[in-house]
């Protein structure tokens, strides 16, 4: 799950009750802590704790082969990662996948949502169709698309040969096509999410704006460019950031469809961490690589945070 920051009103109503009697306030304090406790215990054990432990581990020579942290190595794991060509290669694959999937997933979702919003009837049908693949597990999606991409007997190759392209590339096994093939399958798989966010954004544009534009003789094309797209800019910012973060987390599809291959040509950063940590058992080094990866995602999240805060102030 990734997230959109939701503003929460903290404390305004609580301060209104500041005049409460001390005994009551003690009760309230106890009740508050008690109600929050089950979540907080799990939160500290399984989110805050592992984060801190991961930071510590990244400075040690930890391994799955021996218990405990192992020897202190200082920043060695980090210097090793930053000078490793494998690390940078998998980082590049992650960025490349993000660059390949984000523009079509945002632009196509926008266009299809605008077109669907124009319909008088049957919106539910397109919403259903475009969103349905999003609920399919990655494992099932990968099986289906691997079959579609199968050389010669797969559906895509048959169609291509029917239109005269007799020698299509071997999609998933060709280093220069594998990433694009996975990206295309991903567009099919996850477009529905952005599509639904855009449809919701379109609902908030007042209809009378279009009517006014119509009276002024603006064409549909003009209405779209001058009214719809500018008024959707906040939705677009949200969709864009959620998409970048989701794409940076790429693992499932590549692991399942190409296993990072051919010859590591598509291995993303999460799979690099997986290989280092769980095949080579070098957990200290894997934790350091995870932290560097975390910094990239954090940077995107923080940029988003400041943009949305500025938008809120303007609004």
């Amino acid at each position, binding site marked *: *799950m990734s*997230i*959109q920051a*939701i503003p*929460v*009103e*903290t404390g305004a*109503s609580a301060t*209104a*009750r500041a005049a409460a009697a001390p005994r009551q306030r003690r009760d*309230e304090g106890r*009740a508050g*802590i*008690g*109600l*929050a406790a089950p*979540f907080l215990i*799990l*939160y500290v*054990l*399984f*989110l805050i*704790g*592992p*984060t801190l*432990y*991961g930071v510590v581990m990244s400075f040690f020579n930890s391994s799955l082969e021996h218990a405990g942290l192992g020897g202190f190595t200082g920043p060695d794991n980090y210097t090793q990662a930053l000078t490793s060509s494998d690390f940078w290669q998998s980082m590049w694959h992650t960025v490349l996948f993000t660059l390949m999937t984000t523009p079509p997933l945002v632009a196509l979702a926008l266009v299809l949502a605008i077109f669907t919003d*124009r*319909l008088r009837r049957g919106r539910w049908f397109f*919403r*259903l169709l475009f*969103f*349905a*693949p999003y*609920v*399919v*597990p990655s*494992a*099932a999606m990968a*099986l*289906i698309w691997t*079959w*579609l991409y199968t050389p010669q*007997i797969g559906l895509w190759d048959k*169609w291509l040969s029917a239109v005269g392209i007799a020698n299509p590339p071997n999609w998933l096994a060709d280093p220069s096509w594998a990433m694009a093939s996975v990206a295309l399958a991903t567009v099919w798989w996850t477009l529905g999410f952005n599509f639904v*966010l855009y449809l919701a954004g379109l609902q908030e544009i007042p209809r009378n704006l279009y009517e006014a534009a119509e009276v002024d*003789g603006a*064409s*549909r094309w003009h209405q779209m460019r001058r009214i719809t797209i500018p008024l959707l800019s906040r939705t677009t910012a949200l969709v864009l950031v*959620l998409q970048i*973060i989701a794409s940076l987390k790429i*693992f499932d599809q590549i692991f*399942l469809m190409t296993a990072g291959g051919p010859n590591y040509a598509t291995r993303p950063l999460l799979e690099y961490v*997986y290989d280092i*940590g*769980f095949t080579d058992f070098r*957990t200290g080094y894997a934790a350091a690589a*995870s*932290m560097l990866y975390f910094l990239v*995602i954090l940077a995107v999240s923080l940029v988003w945070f400041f943009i949305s805060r500025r938008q809120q102030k303007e609004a």
Partner: protein
Amino acid sequence: MSAISLPRRSAEVHARSQTADWRARYFNWFCLSVLLVFAAIWIIPLLWAVDTSLKPDGVIAAQPTSWWSGSWTVHAYQELFNLGNIQVWYLNSFMISLLSAVFAVVACSMAGFAIARTRFRGRRFIYGLIAAGLLIPPQVLIVPQFQEFNAVHLLNTYWVQVLPAVAVPIAVIIFASFFNGIPAELAEAAHVDGASWWRIYRTIYMPLSKPAISAVFIFTFVWKWNDFLWPLLTLTNTRTMTLPVGLSQVSSSFGIQYAEIMASAVLGALPLIVVFLLFQRRIVEGIATTGIK
């Protein structure tokens, strides 16, 4: 002058609106045809998977891309069920998703209520800690979390899936912001009447929060059902695997038996497609209001 020019102008406007009408209709047809083309592209992979799964393997080898085989069969499905693992994977996926969703709703709504409606020492700090957690993607924690569960011997259990799925900060924030939208006077009045905070939470706030409950429940359920990396790492025993992990293992044993492979893909996709068809409105509204991905 004005008496003459007025009708002329309105005639002009009328003519213009007629061309606009015509253009609008043309444009709507254009939109619809683009949508229909994309709709076809979107449905074909799913239909093709179902189609392949219902053909005998021999037919697939002979004419791999004919849609109509003439000899439909559910042999591939029978074979999958005869292997006996898929039933266990369904059960595991269902139990893990259900337990995660129930615990997440209970624990996160309680914490959300505490933050939104009670004052206690350190509340601001705890809220900050939870908000900071929004920035931490669970994927970067796989190594330390694995070590943790390995140390307490909980790998290959439901707990290794359920416990981290409850510690999701966004669910607390969703509940807290929803509770903030319910007038605080409600809690105050009940409190003056002597109701305990637990009672206020359970009998006043929770019954009013069905949209937030269903959003958190559905998203936790779907997320855990489709989760792949963490179950792949921690559920290595065939009998403890979830459906997606099991499918990724079983497909390699089928080699080029495409009907069996597609049957397993269809069985993997089916439950959530059905859930989506049943709860389409709630799922779509949930996404639109929370943006959980």
